[in-house]
């Protein structure tokens, strides 16, 4: 069973994502901010991380950079509610830092499940490569 860590400071998002992923056969974990997320990743060694961008403490961009240093090749999906034209929009930066997929909230169940299933082979390729 693939392990997915969901990092989002908004409880309703991380909780519903975790439950959704669990219902679809993933072993899902949740963290409330970037620092907790990094701690959790060290503990559970996930196959995939889904992280929000705008969070207190370590934000999603810092999380992505830290995860790349900690676990090179670990696929990361960045999610954000920032609009495309403002300074809040950091999804582009997430992609440049190596997030394999970026999803703008609100995304559909199909979109997130598709992104997860596409990203997980990346993890397997790295692990078995």
């Amino acid at each position, binding site marked *: 069973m693939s392990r997915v860590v969901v990092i989002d400071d908004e409880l309703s998002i991380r909780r519903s994502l975790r439950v959704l992923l669990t219902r679809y056969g993933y072993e899902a974990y949740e963290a409330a901010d970037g620092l907790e997320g990094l701690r959790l990743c060290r503990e559970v060694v996930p196959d995939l991380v889904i992280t929000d961008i705008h969070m207190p403490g370590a934000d999603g961009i810092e999380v992505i950079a830290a995860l790349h240093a900690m676990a090179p090749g670990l696929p990361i999906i960045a999610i954000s*509610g920032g609009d495309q034209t403002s300074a809040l929009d950091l999804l582009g930066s997430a992609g440049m830092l190596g997030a394999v997929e970026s999803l703008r909230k609100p995304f559909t169940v199909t979109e997130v499940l598709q992104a997860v299933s596409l990203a997980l082979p990346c993890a397997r390729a790295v692990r078995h490569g």
Partner: protein
Amino acid sequence: MTLSSPALLVAANRAAALETVLRWMIHDFRNPMQTLSFLPVLTAVEAEIGEPQEDTPGWREAFTIACERLTTSLTLVDRIVGSVPQSTAPEPVALSEVLRYLADLFRARRGRFRIDVEGACGTPLPAVAAVRRDLESALLNLVLNAAEAAGPAEVTLTATASVRSGGVELVLEDGGPGIPEMLRPRLFEPFATTRTDRPGRGLGLYAARHLLVSSGGELRYEPGNPGSRFIVSLAEWGTLPGR
């Protein structure tokens, strides 16, 4: 009215500030919308399983929170666009209510900068003489200015209020990079800005001061350690001549 008339510059600034706030609101609506968009699928899966699972209370809690967030955001939008008194003459304004509104507006702003006006909200304050809408705009401008000047750095902004003889003094302090010395003499002039990458800005402090002075208040700057301190002086209602 000329192209550089104060009214026009203030209106331009008000529009820019409103745009910024509405962008925040878009962000605030997207989170609960995200959660609620999962509801039909999770409900269907739950019905298929036929009995509540261990984490069922968890996702029900998530939907309750999402609904609360939507309600809060809708209340704020209503406040921003619809419910603000439109008086153009100074009137008695409860400063703590204005600060509470700012606190609500910034409560959801996480990550890059933190706004703490809670300390000032609880202070017993007399009613001040102000045009409420202008006072809110001026204070919003001061907060936005701190965030803008800080660039990508995290900024903590705190507000404290104290009663002075005949009025109230509100101090807004930020932990940003502060105002460069060479800019200070023309800090409250239009288009004075440290940011060269955002054309058309640099009206926030000008507008804030204009709005405060035109309703009997004052605004001054002091260098912080680090960052900036903006001191807003407001007359207590009843102390201005003729009131």
